[in-house]
């Protein structure tokens, strides 16, 4: 099924959680800001939230230094 990730269309498996999707994409599961269809998710919600066709996901993983 198709979703939009950071503005780009992507094919993902059906019945995937956001946590699993991030793992597949090689995104480390810490210091994340994840916006799912306009709403920010807490880190512990990522494992329970399913990805559905047409979902809009914006993901930023922050790295240190300032």
């Amino acid at each position, binding site marked *: 099924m198709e979703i939009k990730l950071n503005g780009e269309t992507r094919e993902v498996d059906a019945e995937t959680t956001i946590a699993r999707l991030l793992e597949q994409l090689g995104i480390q599961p810490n210091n994340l800001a994840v916006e799912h269809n306009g709403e920010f998710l807490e880190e512990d919600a990522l494992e329970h939230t399913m990805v559905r066709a047409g979902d809009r996901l914006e993901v930023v*993983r*922050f790295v240190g230094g300032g």
Partner: protein
Amino acid sequence: MTIAASEQISVRLNERGISVARGTTLRELRRAHKPDADVIIRNGFPHRDDVPLEEGDEVVLIRRGEVPSPEEMESLMTARHGPGVHAKVKVARVGIAGCGGLGSALAVALARTGVGALLLVDFDVVEPSNLNRQQYFVDQIGMEKVRAMAANLARINPYVRVETRNARLTRGNIADIFVGCNAVAECFDDPAAKRDMTLAVREGLPRTPLVTVSGIAGHGPAGQIRARRVFKNVFLVGDNENAAQPGRGLLAPRVVVAAGLQANLILRLLLGEIGQDDNE
């Protein structure tokens, strides 16, 4: 047939257009307008000799160590920054979360730009290891960063209102502290704090634009540090890759590039040049 030369010529004196009698010399101009000036600059060059003015000359009369008056500072900003820019920035209040490498350089850029007010928040003190990239001086080691930066900004532009909070920012207090800011900059070191700030501002101050930073370490190509929108009202500066770590520390060039991108983005936001759907 000769045409009589006009009696008056137009010159600019300290950024203001004035009319003077043809033949007036630099020193006569000084005597008439600023007799205590000890430096005379004409068309960009300091002059010790006395010469007659010419049409279109730009003259600056300076007394060493004299702080420009509020009116002079205002007219300098207005002349430099173009129509309308200063009017908008001087009524703006920008919050800066963290006064390390990013925050200190950002504060300096915004103060020079003439932003109306800056709110500086940090809990830290100036350490010797900060000096490789942070806008502090050797005689400020051991001082609270917010106090040191306030002192520096007072010497750069005394007409910026600088508010300081010596405090540790948390997800719980960020919205309360930055309420009333027209824009906020995230200038932390710790990536978890960067994340917390993003969520706190999006939840508590959803209409306040936030500029965060991620990925500025090392000395790889600085062109990889970009500025882009990531969420509604949240922009990200950085290469989003180069974390600060042993063997790849923070160096002034890339830190200043990132702070400059933050400053420019904030300026554009204050000027209303970034639309709801614009990416940068």
